């Protein structure tokens, strides 16, 4: 009989214990949401979109699990709390990765801007040395127009850089560099051809 009484008491204690265990980890939820917001502010959607999507998805899973527990008579938020800790760490990593990627892109824009300015200067110099044959003059006119477009593009890329939209700036400056390098090659080839003509080939 004594045992039965003890079992009954144990069951009541268990029910009481299980019910008291069910407290929503609101602080961790808030902290994780704040970390995700910080990642978004760090432009994770632009620089590390897949990482951000993964963290947002994890948060959705957690919130659904919390509601699952809230739907139950005996709530158990322990696993959700653990998941929240993991997601918080992941969100912080996403923010850090976004910042790092942004810095990397920024650096790439700076390097490409420096490179293209050198190519522009070299092209201006090569234009003076370029041959002006029958078709040369008109081709040079077109090249000059294209170099003016390149310079305008560099100015636009610089403005995008100043605004902090580094990916757009990078696309623009890369396109401008492609054109400028193409012109550079064309000019060098034309000059080399003329030099080749000037030197008669050695007799074999």
């Amino acid at each position: 009989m004594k045992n039965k009484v003890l079992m009954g008491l144990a069951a009541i204690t268990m029910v009481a214990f299980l019910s008291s265990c069910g407290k929503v980890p609101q602080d961790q939820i808030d902290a994780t949401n704040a970390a995700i917001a910080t990642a978004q502010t760090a432009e994770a959607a632009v620089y590390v979109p897949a990482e951000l999507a993964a963290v947002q998805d994890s948060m959705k899973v957690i919130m659904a699990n919390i509601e699952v527990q809230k739907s139950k008579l005996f709530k158990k938020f322990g696993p959700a709390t653990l998941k929240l800790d993991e997601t918080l760490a992941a969100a912080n990593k996403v923010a850090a990765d976004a910042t790092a990627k942004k810095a990397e892109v920024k650096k790439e824009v700076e390097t490409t801007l420096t490179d293209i300015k050198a190519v522009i200067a070299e092209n201006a110099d090569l234009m003076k040395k370029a041959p002006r044959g029958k078709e040369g003059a008109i081709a040079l006119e077109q090249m000059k127009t294209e170099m003016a477009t390149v310079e305008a593009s560099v100015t636009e890329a610089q403005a995008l850089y100043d605004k902090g939209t580094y990916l757009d700036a990078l696309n623009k400056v890369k396109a401008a560099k492609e054109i400028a390098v193409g012109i550079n090659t064309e000019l060098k080839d034309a000059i080399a051809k003329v030099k080749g003509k000037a030197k008669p080939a050695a007799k074999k």
Partner: protein
Amino acid sequence: MLIFAAIAVSFPLALLLLIRLTPRPPVREMEYARETLSKAGSDRADTYSKKLFTQAAIYYDSAMVNWKRENKRFIYFRDYEKVAFFAELSAKKAIQAGDNSISSTSSLKIKLKQKFETLNDLISEINNLFTTYPLSSEIRNRISNGKMLLEEAEIAYKKGQYLQANRKMTDSEYLLTASYDNASSNLKNYFKSYSVWKNWADRTINDSKKNRDYSIIIDKFSRKCFIYHNGSKKYEFDTELGKNWVGDKREKGDNATPEGMYKIIKKFDTNKTKYYKALLLDYPNDEDMAAFKSDIARGKLPPSAKIGGLIEIHGNGGKGIDWTEGCIALTDKDMDIVFKLAKGGTPVTIVGSTHELEEVVNR
């Protein structure tokens, strides 16, 4: 004691019954909705099927809001029907969004690839056709901007930014196509006089044969000076023309090289001209005078306009650009040859081209 025993037995039973009677939330439906939404996201439906994806996300949020609201109610009064409804709707929309995104991306990629090829071909044709043709600076700028936009589009395409690539390519297409159309209609217009030019050139060659003498033909488009003797071509020299060589000369100061059948009326040796040596033509001839008067009468030229003159074949050429005010410049070396064989009365026929436009295009 019996009471305690009854409680001990009935309590767990009651508890089990209570648990069984608790309404069950649509966990599987919610999980499925979240998974499909996540997959749609990884299929980039947020970009390529934005409307459907947004709807799916809104339905998922609605399901969560309803779930939270139901969970706040007393456990036995909860009703998860709406949650299931929204979850199902969200999954349906997310699947549609994902499928739509995949098919749109794929067709956009094909479209962009084709457009790339078309526009690159167009650029090659522009380069090929207008290498020696003086386009206006506005058209040159448009072509240049079109090329730049195409380059930007290619970079965006390689990064998988298809919408951005499409926007850039559409702008590029507009600039390049409009420039090409404009330039080629200009060129076609120019070649409208081809039959007249051909007639002049044939007559000039025949006269050279008939008279057993020299005659000169200037081909403006290919910048060539051909010397015929006894109906056969003896020499071919490069020339430089007026800065505004396209089209016939209409008035003094328009920097155009005239088109017509002329004759040499005077020769200037080295000490008589600042252009090394020169052969003065009888421009304006009767046709030029008639055309000039007609232009004034029809208001195409102002009454104060003057017809101009002093069109010559002269030296100081070889600059590589069209620099004269309407004359034909040769290198001094070539000028020596032409000067030697030409005399007063030698025919000089200036034509836009000795080849048809199709030939010029396919050269």
